């Protein structure tokens, strides 16, 4: 059981994805050729099911080759509350680092996207549920500040169970910190686009994810602020299938568009060029 503020999502989460030869898609059961998923950005070529995409591949998907420069990697988590838990928080952190090869849940970089300088950040659900603690907030801020300083657009990919419980109110305050960071971008008239992946929930959904100029959702992702189980307890009825899904969020006016991952880069380039013009933006 997860120990961060997590949310039980309605969608069944398949493990990272079939790798070996002869494996089948966990969603449609179609036979997958070796390497087939990797070639299609981990989207099933048969049913378009979107498997989780690791942070580095996410950045590689958008950035022009050879333009990526990571930042904020030196910012590392501490245990500010000396949190009492069955497993100490520092141990959870080092386990997550070993499991994922990441230093924290948020990977930040500057790059060029179709020749256009941009900041890009990815919040990875694989690292402690993509939970937002002080490091996520600080890396987000440094990335946003880099975008302001260099007059670049900011693109952030979210996937998260919410706030990181082990850092208590420090985590809650990262909602404020990231929104204030976005406000600095807004004041500088720089584009800010978010891409919401499965799942985007809690304090992450209710902060930097939803104050973007343009909000894109990946197909089949689930987004909610409260957990579906708590909502069902409140309204004393079962939630309909598809509750909180990208498609439902689109229908309720909460996101701008639902875009297949394989078309995401082109769409992003289109959005940035319409918002910024050809680099000669005012």
């Amino acid at each position: 059981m997860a120990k961060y503020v997590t949310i039980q999502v309605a969608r069944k989460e398949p493990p990272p994805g079939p790798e070996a030869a002869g494996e089948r898609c966990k969603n449609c059961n179609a036979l997958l050729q070796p390497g087939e998923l990797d070639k299609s950005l981990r989207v099933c070529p048969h049913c378009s099911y979107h498997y989780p995409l690791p942070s580095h591949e996410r950045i590689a998907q958008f950035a022009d080759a050879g333009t990526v420069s990571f930042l904020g990697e030196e910012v590392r988590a501490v245990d500010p509350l000396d949190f009492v838990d069955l497993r100490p928080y520092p141990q959870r952190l080092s386990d997550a680092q070993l499991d994922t090869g990441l230093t924290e849940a948020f990977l930040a970089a500057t790059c060029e996207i179709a020749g256009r300088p941009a900041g890009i950040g990815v919040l990875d659900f694989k690292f402690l549920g993509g939970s937002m603690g002080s490091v996520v907030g600080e890396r987000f801020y440094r990335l946003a500040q880099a975008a302001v300083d260099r007059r670049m657009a900011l693109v952030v990919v979210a996937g998260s169970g919410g706030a990181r419980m082990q850092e208590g109110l420090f985590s809650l305050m990262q909602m404020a910190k990231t929104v204030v960071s976005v406000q600095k971008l807004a004041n500088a008239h720089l584009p800010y686009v978010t891409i919401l992946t499965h799942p985007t929930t809690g304090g992450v959904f209710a902060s930097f994810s939803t104050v973007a100029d343009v909000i894109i959702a990946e197909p089949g992702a689930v987004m909610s602020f409260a957990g579906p189980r708590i909502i069902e307890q409140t309204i004393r009825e079962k939630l309909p299938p598809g509750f909180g899904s990208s498609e439902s969020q689109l229908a309720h006016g909460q996101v701008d568009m639902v875009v297949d991952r394989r078309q995401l880069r082109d769409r992003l380039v289109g959005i940035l060029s319409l918002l910024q013009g050809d680099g000669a933006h005012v």
Partner: protein
Amino acid sequence: MSDRQTPEQAWERVLLARHAERPQTLDYIAVAFPDFLELSGDRLHGDDKAVVAGLTTLGRRRIVLIGTQKGHTLKERQERSFGMPRPEGYRKAMRLARLGEKFGLPVVTLVDTPGAYPGKDAEEGGQAGAIARSIETFAGLTTPTVTVVIGEGGSGGALALALADRVFMLENSTYSVISPEACGALVWRDAAEGPRAAAALRVSASDLFELGLIDAVIPEPPGGAHTDHRQMANRLLREIELALDGLVDLEPAERLRLRHEKYLKMGSYATASSK
């Protein structure tokens, strides 16, 4: 950091913060804001009774006052959704905050909520976006802002109304990223572990002041705020007035810069020397 509170000590605060007779926004209004003029509605969808908002005076100053209201009786609690705002509640707060900005009025918020309302309609009506935009709105207001957590500060639903130049907590109020019961259920698989979780999360006003996450703790009358509403209201008023005295003289741009700086500094992390 002083010694950790015991689970029993931490839980005593939680129970006091939730005490049925503890003064709520409307109690403070009844005692201390006789000229309060309530304004209603978000102008888009509805009027959320979990959020009370209006115009009033504090000393010589006109202010906008916004607070969550849990209710005391079962009937009132139901009417007010136990103080859990829906998107229209946050939008009403934002509307009033902007009204204050338009007329140069300080904005004071009183926070006492278990959290945002966890309902299907609230979710589909954009609960997450409403909270995010409320945080954004209060972050950008050009007029002085003061928040007092008067009871429960429940997670993002509280933060949406609690971003301010000065954030105070009453001595026995609590403020937390997750309810102690939910935390207990996650860590020890038992909601009855709330007391242990409350201590682990450091939800008390004194803990949060020591951690640098709030600006001051306002003492309560002996036994707690519920024992003497008038005395509590007088202390609350005095602290808000003093805070506003210090804030009104700042240039709006400077006040905004300081507010942003305060929130951009929030966090506890290390900076590795290599890599």
